[in-house]
């Protein structure tokens, strides 16, 4: 089975369900800090792709792949602590 490349955790710069805006004016190949809308209840969540461990495998997770489901996103300071 071909292994999918797993990159680092990155906000896509867009909210879930929308393609990142293309900046046609910019000549830079990639912006370092992608501006993300401020997080706020009642607004779309910042979308991201990130590496993850799930069910015995390493995989790349994209938040917008969970559209249609309820998602609880839970941050915590570190493994081997309580949650």
């Amino acid at each position, binding site marked *: 089975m071909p292994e999918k490349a*797993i990159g*680092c*955790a*990155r*906000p896509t710069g867009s*909210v*879930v*369900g929308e393609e990142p805006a293309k900046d046609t004016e910019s000549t830079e190949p990639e912006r370092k800090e992608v501006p*993300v809308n*401020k*997080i*706020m*209840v*009642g*607004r*779309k*969540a*910042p*979308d*991201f792709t*990130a*590496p*993850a*461990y*799930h*069910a015995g495998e*390493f*995989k790349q*997770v994209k*938040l*917008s792949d*969970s*559209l*249609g*489901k*309820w*998602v*609880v*996103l*839970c*941050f*915590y*300071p*570190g*493994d*081997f*602590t*309580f*949650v």
Partner: protein
Amino acid sequence: MSVSVDTQFVHKMWNETELSKMVDGGVPFPMIADAAGHLGKAYGVYDDEAGVDVRGRFIIDPDGMVQAMEVLTPPVGRKVEESLRQIKAFQHVRKTSGAEVTPSGWEPGKKILKPGPDLVGHVWEVWKPGDE
């Protein structure tokens, strides 16, 4: 999904050495690695002095809308039942397209409110703190 600045490899070890002993079959959801804190920054929960993501919890609905967020400093843990209660409440509101809303302390089967002009000033007639 859970997120910390640990790598996916550490997540695997934590799941194998500890979490799988607390939960049959181990953690059922993706454990996300946010090594550089980019996700934490996007969600406003990255502490750049400590270099970790603090205890932020976000409930995101099927449309990708953030419905709830809760952020705690590291020493105090969360209550899972409260997150589940909120999800059930948001699901109820969603099912009724907002025609029914849930007062404080609501749980499935308890009193709901129907917002509208008739309710203004009359909440006390249909709901009291003891109804929680």
